[in-house]
């Protein structure tokens, strides 16, 4: 069903592209939809364009995992439209034709501006493309059961097809339909969440989409003797302990303990299976024969010698005595043992060690263990379609009530937020740590209890209470979001699809209303995901679609298809902007190549292919980073590279061509440079993040003022030449 709805949607979008493709034979048709789009359609298309994978997947994911900090992105993204409306919309429409470079260059006709603006458009588009492609891969994985990189490739191919067939007319209508549907279905989802209410034991969902019963993660009491942790519950056996040391402070950051426990193996439908962490884990069919060999056959006799049990087994044609107890077989890395005449799966998994009120507590964690040339283990058992990381995200207490029976049905938008903001409401948020265990690389996910009052205010992603560095990071991000919107090339080109400046203004207002409403919904969707046991602890980006899955498979299919279309729409817009920069700014205007109309459109399409290909590669590389965070970086680059020149050109008469070029170059170089040497990139390079020379998460606070400064200084220096 989900796949069917998804495929129908994608086929519809591509068919629309081919149909509209006939209308895009001229360059103006290809790059600016002939300038004839109605302002209401353009306004919703703005929303479709803007409500990208980052808004839908990233923000909801960040709210779900880090609370209010994710909503800061919603606030900043929307505030950015105020700059677009009050400062940029109409003047830019007046100055430009197809691209933002046209607008900048309208006064000067400088080839340097054309080159710098085209490069900046390309850089910003590519930065913005990365999160969209990452989002695409994330979406396709649970829906079509494809690997992340196939998702990225699939989106790349579809988008290139859309862009190469029709250009701006097609992307406008795709974005219009998608924008409208996204808002409608997100509203339905939020109403469903509020209707469902708040409870402490929401069912989980497995990878197959089946609703599974609520699983309460265990907390064990334990004692420590000579570095050995002994759980009070003696069904668990201590294996080893791992201390994670902070490389900078040399202090213990966290401690994990490996325990083993035997789970009874039951033969069902010719498969051995065991119930573990809320699901039935089934062993592969070829394990059945091996494990039957471990079982006691009816004809076999137990032989007791000096109180030790033995049985006869035939090994290499010889009948020998072997130990009856403790015999084991390893199936895909999982040890299955015989004990007291019964078969057990011996699970070895990690627990987080905490000292609470002077007592040792072991908190059950989820783990992914990767060992070279061996099967990946999830929670100590072989990874399979069913045995994946369990969905998480629940409340431990609702306004102080901890009874599993306590729940609040059919809440309303205000009460919902008021309860979750309560000081006595406790969230179980899942954090992660990586460490090595021998040659295995372990990623451990563990719950942390956080008060509602802390979740519902900024402070978890940006630790604004802790240090000035974090405060500056926060200011830098809010600045980038505020100034970035009005500088995004794919948003700027949409001003050229309407007939006149007043239509540009009106379409911006429609966009603000639609986007503002959607961003309010993101808080409900994110929090809904945070408390309804639907979060994948390894990938926050899937929170909104998984929330939809907990409501029903139809709405999940529609929301996933919409999110996929969201990626398609935004990526097509970005690729159009990038191809416009190459074909129009670089080749037509800067290089002054004499090309026919058809040749220019073909060059644009060729550029679309190239940029699309680059986006596919980067989408695969940046797989593990939250998409909203990546978009924040794209905004910082856009705000640094483009906004100073746009604003100063419109409002400072002394601005010169050289000043604009300097501002763009300084903005692009500084912002990209600061990002490349930031902790996030160091993590991607596999280097210790504390070694990153620039400890800023967002570069805007440095790069935007310096870009303005470069423009002012260079413009003032080049004034004299003009006067002379």
């Amino acid at each position: 069903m989900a796949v069917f709805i998804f495929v129908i949607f994608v086929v519809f979008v591509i068919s629309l592209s081919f149909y509209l493709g006939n209308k895009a034979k001229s360059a103006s048709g290809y790059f600016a939809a002939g300038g004839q789009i109605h302002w209401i359609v353009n306004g919703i298309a703005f929303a479709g364009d803007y409500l990208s994978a980052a808004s839908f997947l990233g923000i909801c994911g960040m709210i779900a995992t880090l609370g209010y900090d994710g909503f800061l992105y919603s606030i900043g993204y929307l505030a950015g439209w105020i700059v677009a409306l009050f400062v940029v919309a109409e003047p830019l429409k007046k100055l430009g034709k197809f691209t933002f470079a046209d607008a900048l260059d309208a006064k000067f006709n400088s080839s340097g501006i054309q080159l710098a603006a085209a490069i900046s458009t390309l850089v910003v588009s590519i930065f913005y493309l990365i999160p969209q492609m990452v989002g695409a891969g994330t979406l396709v994985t649970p829906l079509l059961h494809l690997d992340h990189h196939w998702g990225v490739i699939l989106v790349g191919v579809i988008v290139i097809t859309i862009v190469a067939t029709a250009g701006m007319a097609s992307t406008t209508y795709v974005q219009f339909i998608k924008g409208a549907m996204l808002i409608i279905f997100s509203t339905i989802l939020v109403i469903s969440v509020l209707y469902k209410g708040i409870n402490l034991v929401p069912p989980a969902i497995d990878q197959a989409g089946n609703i599974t019963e609520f699983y309460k993660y265990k907390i064990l009491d334990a004692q420590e003797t000579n570095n050995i942790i002994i759980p009070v519950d003696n069904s668990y056996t201590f294996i080893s302990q791992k201390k994670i040391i902070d490389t900078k402070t040399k202090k213990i950051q966290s401690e994990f303990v490996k325990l083993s426990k035997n789970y009874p193996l039951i033969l069902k439908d010719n498969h051995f299976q065991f119930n573990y962490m809320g699901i039935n884990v089934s062993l592969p069919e070829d394990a059945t024969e091996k494990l039957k060999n471990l079982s006691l056959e009816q004809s076999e006799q137990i032989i007791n010698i000096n109180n030790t049990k033995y049985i006869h087994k035939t090994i290499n044609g010889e009948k020998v005595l072997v130990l009856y107890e403790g015999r084991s077989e390893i199936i895909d890395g999982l040890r299955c043992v015989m004990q007291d005449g019964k078969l057990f799966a011996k699970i070895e998994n990690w627990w987080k060690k905490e000292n609470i009120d002077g007592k040792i507590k072991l908190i059950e964690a989820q783990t992914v263990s990767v060992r070279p040339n061996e099967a990946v283990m999830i929670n100590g058992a072989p990874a399979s379609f069913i045995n994946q990381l369990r969905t998480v995200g629940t409340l431990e207490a609702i306004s102080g009530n901890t009874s599993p029976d306590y729940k609040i049905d059919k809440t309303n938008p205000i009460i919902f937020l008021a309860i979750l903001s309560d000081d006595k409401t406790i969230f179980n948020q899942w954090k992660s740590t990586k460490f090595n265990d021998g040659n295995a690389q372990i990623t451990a996910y563990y719950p942390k209890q956080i008060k509602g009052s802390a979740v519902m205010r900024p402070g978890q992603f940006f630790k604004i209470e802790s240090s000035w560095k974090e405060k500056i990071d926060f200011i830098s991000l809010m600045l980038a979001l505020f100034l970035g919107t009005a500088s995004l090339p794919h948003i700027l080109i949409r001003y050229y699809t309407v007939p006149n400046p007043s239509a540009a203004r009106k379409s911006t207002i429609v966009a603000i209303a639609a986007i503002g409403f959607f961003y309010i919904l993101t808080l409900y969707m994110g929090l809904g995901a945070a408390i309804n046991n639907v979060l994948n602890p390894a990938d926050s980006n899937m929170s909104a679609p998984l929330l939809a899955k907990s409501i029903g498979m139809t709405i999940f299919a529609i929301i996933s298809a919409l999110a996929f279309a969201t990626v398609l729409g935004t990526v097509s817009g970005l690729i159009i902007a990038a191809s416009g920069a190459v074909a129009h700014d670089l080749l037509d205007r800067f290089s002054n190549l004499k090309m026919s109309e058809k040749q220019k459109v073909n060059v644009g399409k060729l550029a679309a292919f190239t940029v699309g290909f680059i986006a596919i590669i980067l989408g695969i590389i940046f797989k593990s980073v939250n998409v909203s965070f990546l978009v924040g970086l794209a905004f910082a680059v856009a705000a640094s590279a483009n906004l100073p020149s746009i604003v100063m050109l419109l409002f400072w008469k002394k601005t010169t061509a050289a000043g604009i070029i300097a501002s763009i170059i300084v903005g692009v170089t500084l912002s990209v440079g600061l990002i490349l040497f930031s902790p996030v990139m160091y993590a991607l390079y596999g280097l210790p993040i504390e070694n990153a020379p620039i400890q800023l998460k967002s570069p805007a606070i440095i790069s935007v003022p310096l870009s303005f400064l470069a423009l002012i200084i260079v413009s003032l220096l080049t004034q004299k030449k003009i006067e002379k």
Partner: protein
Amino acid sequence: MFHKNITDNTEPDYAENYKIKLGVIMFFIYSLIYAGFIAINVLAPLLMAKKIIFGLNLAVVYGFGLIIFAVISALIYNHFCSKKEETFKQKK
């Protein structure tokens, strides 16, 4: 053809100066309120957890307020711009 202006910018816009001035004023008003939000978070982050109305804390009220105020100020701006454009059209 490729570089021909495809949009209707030929009609002089007499309301242009008025619209630019109004836009800048409204931009500064919004910027101030936005800056206030950042300032509280940086200087007194715990204040954001303070309950303001209907059990909602300052973070939620201020955050929603910024979004709703953006929509309202956009509508106000459009109202005055359209009114001015009409006035000039009628004068003509």
